[in-house]
């Protein structure tokens, strides 16, 4: 990456009267819309040629780290390879050009894929129903908690308004509970990374609507007493929500349904390798067991037999009158679902299991090597799942090397940083998730880079000003928040 790259804006290239002429009708007669409804100001959009535009955005792309260009061990995000075929096949013209409200007569190819995707996701999660409509993990969480609430309401159980979350949970869990009108009850983590069972015992009760769990947890370890947790919550009348953020760790090995979870959301952009796209689109399909089937968000793809042939169609309000409703304008992120479908078909039955096996192998190998090199693991007595935590609390104290410093120093070594300062309960932490698609050499080279930084720190080098080789150096976040500059406005 070239540190001298400039941050010139597309607007700086604008010249009055310049256009990419091939891209719009050259000319058009003015409309007859009444003048009081018309705009009389001119929005300042760029005025640039096609080449200038192509060059500008190509250059911007080169100012990004990405999976395609760097090792990206961002914990909890499952930054695995996104096969190019998934993108190309989702963008076949018949699929990308299909109107969402087009008739099912012109959508059997699309609906067949979606139906089969639902079936495959049911299989890998051990659930009885799947709705593909949530547009991101957080919306899947919303759908899940809304279904839990709807279930209690339908039983006349109106007092269940508390959602239990471990202190290590993703921030979206408590935020979702609040969006669903629930109160959050936080339970602590025990010393070995499992949930504090005694604290959980005293947290459950007649007000418990449910518990939101990630397993393996965000601490990178498997919740060993999951069956007891499930029994405890179920006996108290609550339901169990599985946050699928870490599904990659157990794919094809253990299913949330078999752990007695009632509802799960999957992050298709993690486990099923759809693109992260610089922060989206995600896709947060939800799976449910029998209890919650009637409450699934709509639409869902259904099938029926017509003249001996299978025909796919939408299930809507009429089929699921107790549904929590619609969460998107149409049916969710169909194009993302296509990519997940292609990925799953390419992996096949055995490939699913290999995902979790090699993701776990890579994580355990990397943690062993880093531990051997002198880095401290947050949970050294535990087996890593698909990710693990290194804590720099010792280095921060003795070498003035914080998690932030190490993250920035890694950028200069051409590695994306792991997730830093999450989970909040581990001081100076790095949450590292290598994924199954990285080779041993990549992991070895990463260890070499980590050792080099630690060694330099021991020899007195400070990394407070790193990175040095990026297009920009550390940015002034305080200024960004105090002197808000959120859009370019020429003088």
């Amino acid at each position, binding site marked *: 990456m070239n540190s001298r790259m400039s941050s010139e804006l597309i*607007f700086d290239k604008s010249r009055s009267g310049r256009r990419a002429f091939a891209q719009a*009708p050259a000319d*058009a007669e003015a*409309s007859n*819309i*009444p003048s009081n*409804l*018309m705009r009389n100001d001119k*929005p300042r959009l760029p005025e640039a040629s096609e080449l200038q*535009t192509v060059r500008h955005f*190509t250059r*911007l792309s080169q*100012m*990004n780290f*990405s*999976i*395609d260009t760097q090792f990206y061990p961002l914990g909890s995000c499952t930054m695995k390879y996104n096969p190019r075929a998934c993108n190309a096949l989702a963008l*076949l013209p018949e699929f990308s*050009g299909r*109107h*969402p409200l087009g*008739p099912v007569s012109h*959508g059997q*190819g699309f609906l067949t*894929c979606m139906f089969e995707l639902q*079936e495959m996701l049911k299989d*890998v999660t051990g659930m009885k129903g799947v709705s593909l409509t949530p*547009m991101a993990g957080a919306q899947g969480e919303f759908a899940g908690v809304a279904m839990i609430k709807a279930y209690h309401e339908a039983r006349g159980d109106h007092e269940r308004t508390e959602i239990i979350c471990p202190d290590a949970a*993703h*921030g979206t869990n408590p*935020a979702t509970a*609040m969006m669903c009108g629930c109160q959050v009850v936080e339970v602590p983590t025990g010393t070995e990374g499992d949930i504090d069972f005694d604290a959980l015992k005293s947290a459950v009760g007649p007000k418990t609507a449910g518990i939101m769990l990630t397993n393996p947890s965000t601490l990178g370890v498997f919740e*060993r007493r999951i069956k007891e947790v499930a029994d405890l919550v179920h006996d108290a009348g609550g339901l169990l929500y599985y946050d699928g953020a870490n599904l990659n760790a157990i794919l094809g090995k*253990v299913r949330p349904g078999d752990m007695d979870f009632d509802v799960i959301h999957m992050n298709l952009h993690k486990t099923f390798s759809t693109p992260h*796209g*610089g*922060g989206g*689109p995600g*896709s947060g399909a939800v799976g449910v067991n029998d209890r919650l089937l009637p409450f699934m968000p709509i639409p869902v793809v259904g099938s029926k037999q017509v003249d001996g042939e299978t025909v796919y169609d939408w299930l809507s309000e009429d089929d699921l009158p107790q549904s929590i409703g619609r*969460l998107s*304008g149409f049916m969710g992120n169909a*194009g993302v679902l296509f990519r997940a479908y292609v990925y799953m*078909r390419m992996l096949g039955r055995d490939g699913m*299991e290999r*995902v979790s*096996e*090699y993701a776990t192998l890579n994580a*355990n190998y990397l943690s062993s090597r880093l531990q051997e090199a002198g880095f401290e693991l947050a949970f050294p007595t535990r*087996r890593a799942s698909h990710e693990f935590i290194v804590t720099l609390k010792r280095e921060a104290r003795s070498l003035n090397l914080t998690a932030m410093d190490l993250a920035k120093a890694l*950028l200069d070594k051409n590695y994306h940083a792991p997730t830093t300062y999450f989970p909040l309960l581990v001081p100076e932490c790095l949450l590292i998730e290598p994924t199954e698609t990285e*080779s041993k050499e990549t992991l070895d080279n990463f260890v070499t880079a980590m050792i080099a930084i630690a060694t330099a720190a021991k020899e007195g080098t400070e990394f407070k000003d790193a990175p040095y080789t990026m*297009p920009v150096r550390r*940015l002034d976040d305080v*200024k*960004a*928040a105090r002197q*808000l*500059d*959120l859009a*370019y406005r020429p003088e």
Partner: protein
Amino acid sequence: MPFIPHTEKDTREMLKKIGVDSIADLFDEIPTELKIEQLEHVPEALSEMEISRLMRQRAKMDGSPMCFIGAGAYEHHIPTAVWDIATRGEFYSAYTPYQAEASQGTLQVIYEYQTMITELTGLDVSNASLYDGASALAEASLMAVRINRRVKSGRVLLAPGVNPVYEQVAAAIAGAQGLTFERLPEDMTTGNVDFNALPEGGDPVAVVLQQPSFTGTLDDVDRITDWAHANGALMIGVVNPTSLALLKAPGRWGAEGADIAIGEGQPLGIPMSSGGPYFGFMTCKKKHVRQMPGRIVGRTTDLDDKPGFALTLQAREQHIRRSKATSNICTNQGLMVTAATIYMSLLGHEGLVNVANTCHHNTALLVDGLSALDGVERLFDGPFFHEVALKLDQPVTPLLETLADRDILAGLDITPFVGTDALLVCATETKTQGDIEACIAAFSDVLASANTNSV
């Protein structure tokens, strides 16, 4: 092993380093009774060649009909460069720009997007996008409650032209926090707000107007905005970005302008793709920025005083505020916003005006032709942008099915929404005069045979 690089030698060495004999040993903390033997319903793996063949067969089943449906998703020409660049691996396979120094590309794209979408909507600030237009209405309504704290009613008043699905989505999401959505009275001749029957009092927290409306009509945005503000409500505009090349920007509505503008970003270079992924845009007045949900990018400087870009105002967000966040939203639709920014750059203002005018004229041509047929007339009087509701003297769906057999999707049956046999049509710049004439001729033909059959 698709996408897994390990050789047998690698695996052996790695297991040895870990100190276990087999990969199975790595799962020894998971209770044995929970483990499964084999998945039942996932088929065997396909090679890229095999899946490509299968997907092409499936695509053929969907065909490429000529499409005159709009209703919230619109077929526009998408410049080749848009997706060529947006799917470059550096954009496609990057994540949320947490490490700002290594994500300046994505961050600058979002800053440029925020600039363009605020220019189009005439408002001060934008977030980095939401999931889609419908869910953006839910977020805007919740945002209005946070801004308009004085008002405790939780009542959001929707103009008659707000997309009915948007209302369903907003109710499903924001209803959980006690918000209620009610419709303003409708003038049955125009499909717009009936100003003679507007309610008094009731303390609404916000008023929502969609321009152009779901049925394609254009309402008196100034008058409604002023009425909303006079009644202590915030004004939320739901707008189509293509139409903003021509139509008054929400920031200029009425004396004070709308407070929040949202909409579906799909027309800006995003393929229709059966409904997503799209992106919802949201802009607002600067004074409301701290109540806005979602990511926001700001321009700042680095240690060398050089300009650069970073996520800002993160104290609103779930990963910092947890249960006190403005929303649980975590992602934006980054890739879609990247495409839209390239699209807007390639079109520019002049290009977008020409697209909008061509859409308008094509729709006028289609509507003139269809409403000249017996048994077809416009449902509402008044001006339109690129979508019009037509009233039919017979059930709509059978006609549409017959036309679909001829690979013409002649519009959307909106009978359930408007309570009379009606069709919503749209002709964008992608249609030629020949396409439109073919649609009118086929429609005429199908109407004629329907009438013959019913006699």
